[in-house]
């Protein structure tokens, strides 16, 4: 009897927590960033400076089943010497509540401009990367990630 009573209360707890979990999943109706928000962020950093294409390699899954944990590796082609290195790389997502994901500051000591992390993606969207070289040249690149289950609010 005692053990039945205990398992009952545990079931209640489980029911309660799963209901709370469901509420968390369903509740947020967020305003999502869009391409304009990403453009505004880039403008804030670099104004209307011209962007070159190339040099950046964005490694993301084409399809992410779980938007909560999406691996991203960005690599920028550069000799990484004191005279010529990648200063910064900014990563944006145009379908998240906020456009920013991560900003990296590299130095010539890194040997190569390559960094990996994991991000949340609320829905299928584009990842935009801007690389700033030590001479001020800017490069941009874009990659799309299809998200099966959004990683927002979770």
């Amino acid at each position: 009897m005692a053990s039945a009573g205990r398992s009952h209360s545990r079931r209640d707890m489980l029911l309660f927590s799963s209901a709370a979990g469901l509420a968390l999943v369903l509740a947020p109706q967020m305003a999502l960033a869009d391409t304009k928000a990403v453009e505004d962020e880039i403008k804030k950093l670099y104004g209307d400076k011209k962007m070159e294409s190339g040099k950046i390699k964005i490694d993301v899954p084409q399809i992410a089943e779980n938007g909560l944990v999406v691996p991203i590796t960005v690599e920028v082609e550069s000799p990484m010497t004191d005279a010529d290195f990648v200063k910064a790389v900014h990563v944006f997502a145009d379908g998240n509540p906020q456009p920013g994901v991560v900003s990296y500051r590299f130095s010539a000591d890194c040997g190569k401009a390559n960094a990996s992390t994991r991000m949340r993606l609320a829905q299928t969207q584009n990842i935009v990367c801007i690389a700033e070289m030590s001479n001020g040249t800017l490069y941009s690149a874009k990659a799309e990630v299809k998200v099966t289950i959004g990683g927002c609010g979770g």
Partner: protein
Amino acid sequence: MATNSVPRVRVPAQAKAGEVIEIKTLISHEMESGQRKDAAGKIIPRQIINKFIAAFNGKTVFEAEWAPSISANPYQSFFYKAKESGEFKFTWKDDNGSDYTASAKLTVG
């Protein structure tokens, strides 16, 4: 929330001069985005680690500024070109003002 953030780092113990080594880091943290609501419909305030800094022998070599879009238990890897023996110091900066740190020795020879 996230009061016990435990950092873990993987740095090769030894490297040859000029070798480019990969450094992998992980820290336990909820990375509360400030977008979630609790069961009562109230927004759970943002609390993330907003910055990761890696320094070698006192000189900053790599930094990452994280936004709320970074996953919980944030992972970060990057590279470093080994020149001399010394020590890495890693610092994670929490929104609440706390710093979490870790260090690792590298022998170059």
